[in-house]
């Protein structure tokens, strides 16, 4: 859609987009370009004498068992977080859409985690589950579970999945609730008159109507789990123990900033960019029908 009424002039609009374009070029496009350049070069141990190595950095990455394990771990992480967060958001939204007392309070409490920083969510969960002093640690120990996520990789991975989902349920809840509320009441009442209730009504009526929301959220949650959980994982486990909770974004940081492997980290950046471009295109396709009026 375009406007019919316009203002004349060329210099003014160019001047108005300039600040945004300048920041975009300097801090987004230029670094992205540099990542491409770095990804085909290798630097010696002193950070001098970079030379062109073609796709060697990529070949080294794809040939390394650690990187492949990281990719698989990221896949597992994204699937688990997305499934948990979306199912949680959907169930809560379906019940919050009913006319019950105190639903304003329930809603307020349920969207609370949206406002909490991912890194701070991790701090709270460290407090709850820290191996020595955590409140829940005591409960788990009494139940006979040897809880120590600092030592046991599987527990650490489970924990970052749970906290990742905990943080994201609020977002899905908001979208599912908005989706449910946009369904015309008359439609729901008509279905009720026909005797459609409970699970049957959900399965045959609400779920199909929520499908566009579900597809949209599927992409958004995957992007969230893959890219926006760096702070959460890094603050909670730092990627450890070992590499037990190292997802792809955590590995880029560890390899680039901590291990100073610039070429390898740049090649990983390029792979991540390809991934997020693909996901964003998907997102626009699914949201497109609704946005482009």
């Amino acid at each position: 859609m375009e406007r019919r009424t316009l203002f004349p002039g060329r210099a003014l609009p160019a001047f108005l987009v300039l600040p945004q374009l300048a920041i975009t070029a300097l801090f987004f496009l230029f670094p992205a370009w540099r990542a491409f350049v770095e990804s085909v070069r290798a630097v010696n141990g002193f950070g001098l004498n970079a030379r062109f190595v073609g796709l060697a950095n990529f070949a080294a990455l794809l040939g390394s068992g650690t990187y492949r394990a990281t990719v698989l771990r990221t896949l597992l992480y994204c699937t688990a977080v997305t499934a948990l967060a979306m199912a949680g958001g959907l169930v809560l939204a379906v019940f919050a859409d009913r006319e019950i007392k105190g639903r304003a309070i329930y809603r307020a409490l349920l969207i609370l985690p949206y406002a909490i920083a991912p890194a701070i969510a991790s701090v709270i969960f460290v407090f709850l589950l820290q191996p020595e002093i955590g409140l829940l640690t005591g409960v788990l120990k009494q139940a006979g579970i040897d809880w120590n996520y600092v030592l046991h990789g599987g527990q650490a991975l489970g924990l970052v999945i749970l906290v990742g989902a905990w943080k994201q349920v609020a977002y899905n809840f908001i979208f599912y609730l908005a989706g449910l509320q946009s369904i015309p009441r008359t439609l729901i009442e008509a279905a009720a008159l026909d005797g459609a209730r409970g699970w049957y009504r959900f399965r045959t009526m609400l779920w199909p109507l929520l499908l566009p929301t579900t597809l949209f959220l599927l992409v958004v949650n995957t992007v969230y789990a893959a890219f926006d959980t760096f702070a959460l994982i890094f603050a909670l486990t730092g990627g450890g123990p070992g590499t037990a909770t190292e997802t792809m974004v955590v590995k880029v940081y560890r390899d680039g900033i901590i291990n100073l492997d610039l070429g390898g980290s740049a090649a990983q950046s390029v792979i991540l960019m390809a991934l997020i471009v693909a996901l964003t295109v998907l997102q626009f396709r699914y949201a497109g029908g609704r946005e482009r009026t």
Partner: protein
Amino acid sequence: MKRRPDYLAHGVLGLGAALFALPVWVAFAGATETAGAINRGDLSLLPRLAGLRSFIDVLGYGASADAGVTIGHMLLVSFAMALVIALGKIAISALSAFAIAFFRFPFRMIAFWAILLTLMLPVEVRIIPTYAVMSEFHLINSFTGLTMPLIASATATLLFRQVFLAVPDELVEAARLDGAGPMRFFLDMLLPVSAPNLAALFVILFVYGWNQYLWPLLAVTNGRLNPIVLGIVRMITTDQITPWNLVMAGTIWAILPPVVVVLLMQRWFVRGLTEADK
């Protein structure tokens, strides 16, 4: 129809609310406990009244890793950072959306797509080269470096563009008949009619700015510009013995501003979010 309480709904929602609110409550109760009691593992779920002063004490407390920088100072940094990021994003996005929606100029669509590309380049995927650019421009450890790179916003530009495209032609023509130039129209008509969107966007962007972690981690290496989120995480990872009551008091301070903003402006925010992200 007879009504009895919907026990199932209360059960599910109550369980959900507990799952999301209880951890925060435990953090609050922990803040009022003594550090010794927490380290022995005796944490009560009931806050100690006498312990409420941790919330004041913590403002003057500084983690030893960031010599001399207190939690109170970090809160101020966070406020400044979140405000500059939110207002900056709104300002430059509204201006560029105005240019793209209301003018025809060369490279208009290229500009639009360049802005959209930022959606696909979060900091997480370009950590090292962005850091390199920052240090070449001597922006490490500066407030400009902490905030300016985060001010570009594809989401806000898209939202404003959508709102501006929906403004009726009559309004624009009326303004022109009155002899209003483009900037007068922008300030006196376009911004006021977009007020609800501005409010919603402000909430989303304030929370976004306040909750940043990775960017400050890269852009700030001395404690002076640590925002609270980074400062709190440093408190649990660098200190030998963690003063848990103070960490939890700091945690509550760190979540309070975004939580208050979201709850107070809940209605606008929910509408803004569901419209902006689609």
